[in-house]
């Protein structure tokens, strides 16, 4: 019914054939823009320095892989999948010293990056996707696909429209096979949760999940756990209310966590942070950051939760603080932020700021902030709806 195993493994094969790039003779000048492929085969534009950074990142990824293998040799294979570790330090009653030590090691290790080859296994387990899948019959995904086959809904029409518009030009995603796999995951999910149906943005998220996970079915479950457990509720439903809530929380955090002059300066320019941050939060940075950097963010996202998105978004502003303070115009702010995110080829550059320079935030604090913002968002959306409805009445 859907692709054979070999087809579904294609995405993974691409990862193993990562070539080392050498800037061509024509592009030796650092200010020249060159096109090259990154670790997940996305074509990106940058200068020769960017190519060099990317080659260093490949080397770091390999080194990090060796760290993980060494730990496996030491602590036993799958040590990080023990439930007591993956469920964190919350289970105080069963807390043993070794468990605690492992949990701390794991958190630190994940912030330094999960090797691409281990990502499918580690994500699937630590995110809760494995647990979610285990609560339904083995054939759930196949049955779902069978049940929705041939059905046409507004969501499926929009999905079909977006398939060739999702990372066009990618050597696997932009092929009939890639489109078909992405379609099954998105259509399947649109029937699993009809409140979400299909929301633009999910196409990019699901596409990257397909590239990382070994199988299409696992990508589906990752999408499910992301929307149902990891991210704020109603992030992608009809009026994106969850997304509005996150934007307000982010605005508050920016004033608190970054030097207040940044927030003051941006406000004076009439710059609303959601002008840029909406896309960051809805696509989970997949449209803004280079692929390996995005996936490093997701490594932590799946282990530590949605607060990670705030850490990363704040870090981007923080990194460019000085430049941002010199701007006189909204357009300049946006250009600086766009240029910064597109060139963040070194994930550590971003994540070091995100986790060492922002100060700690707990999931609890974020939840409280959300509770505070929710009524205001609901009131605003409701008021808007009423105004639009009054337009319709006048029309009649």
């Amino acid at each position, binding site marked *: 019914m859907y692709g054979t195993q070999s087809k579904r493994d294609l995405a993974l094969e691409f990862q193993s054939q990562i070539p080392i790039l050498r800037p061509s003779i024509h592009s030796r000048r650092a200010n020249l823009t060159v096109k090259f492929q990154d670790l997940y085969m996305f074509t990106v534009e940058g200068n020769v320095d960017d190519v060099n950074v990317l080659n260093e990142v490949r080397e770091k990824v390999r080194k990090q892989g060796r760290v993980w293998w060494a730990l496996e040799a030491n602590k036993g294979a799958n040590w990080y999948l023990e439930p007591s570790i993956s469920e964190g330090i919350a289970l105080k009653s069963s807390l043993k010293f070794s468990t605690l030590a492992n949990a701390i090691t794991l958190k630190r290790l994940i912030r330094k990056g999960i090797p691409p080859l281990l990502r499918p296994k580690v994500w699937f387990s630590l995110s809760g996707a494995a647990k979610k899948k285990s609560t339904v019959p083995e054939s759930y995904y196949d049955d779902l696909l069978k049940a929705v086959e041939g059905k046409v809904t507004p969501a499926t029409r*929009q999905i079909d*429209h*977006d398939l*060739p*518009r*999702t*990372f*066009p030009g990618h050597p696997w995603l932009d092929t009939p096979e890639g489109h078909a796999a992405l379609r099954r995951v998105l259509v399947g999910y649109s029937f699993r949760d009809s409140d979400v149906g299909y*929301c*633009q*943005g999910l*196409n*990019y998220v699901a596409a990257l999940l397909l590239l990382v996970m070994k199988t299409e079915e696992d990508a589906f479950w990752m999408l499910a756990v992301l929307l149902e457990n990891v991210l704020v509720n109603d992030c*992608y*439903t*009809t*009026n*994106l*209310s969850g997304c*509005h809530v996150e934007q307000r929380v982010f605005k508050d955090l920016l004033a608190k966590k970054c030097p207040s002059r940044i927030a003051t300066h941006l406000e*004076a*320019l*009439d710059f*609303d942070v*959601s*002008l840029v941050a*909406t*896309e960051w939060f*809805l*696509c989970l940075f997949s*449209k803004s950051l280079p692929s390996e950097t995005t996936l490093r963010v997701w490594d932590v996202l799946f282990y530590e939760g949605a607060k990670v998105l705030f850490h990363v978004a704040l870090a981007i502003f923080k990194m460019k603080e000085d430049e941002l303070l010199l701007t*006189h*115009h*909204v*357009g300049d702010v*946006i*250009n600086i932020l*766009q240029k910064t995110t597109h060139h963040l080829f070194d994930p550590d550059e971003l994540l070091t700021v995100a986790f060492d320079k922002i100060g700690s935030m707990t999931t609890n604090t974020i939840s409280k902030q959300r509770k505070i913002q929710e009524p205001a968002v609901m009131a605003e*959306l409701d008021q*808007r709806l009423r*105004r*639009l409805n009054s*337009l319709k009445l006048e*029309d009649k």
Partner: protein
Amino acid sequence: MARTSNKNIQAKLVVLGDMGTGKTSLVLRFIKGQFNDYQESTIGAAFFTQVLSLNEATIKFDIWDTAGQERYHSLAPMYYRGAAAAIVVYDITTMDSFVRAKKWVQELQKQGNPNLIMFLAGNKVDLEKKREVEFEEGEQYAKENGLVFLETSAKTAQNVNELFYEIAKRLVKSSPPTRPGGMKLHRGSRGTERRLFCCSV
């Protein structure tokens, strides 16, 4: 280059319309002279700048190209707030997109800047065979609502530059020659540079 012009105008332009009508393609055709058959879907909105020089003035466009999916509607005010001009785009091959365009026009009339210069663009005229919305229909609606109407094709570039030049011309016309009261000035602006950002909603 700037010597020939006596005015610098900074204007916020917002592009609205149903999903897949070619909003981003129109903007990219204007800015880069390029066209992709499959343009990445826009999430939230994309931001572009472009400078157009007319004899009378130089216009610096800040373009907000918005996402078309219905649920992104709730974000739109953030982008059209303070806009000096708007392009509402529909796809001549789908009637639904024309219906949606009318809704945008209504909303802008009610919520937007009262001096907003509004354009209606029926895009994809290269797909004449699949046409569902007749030229006259678009023209008629535009006339009734005081919009400037053009049929365009981002693919063949038909009427795309004309669209943006026409917007620029009207912006120049509507921009008062002297500093009026209540106009928001560019921070640290030099000389006659001024923004056409107007009152907020």
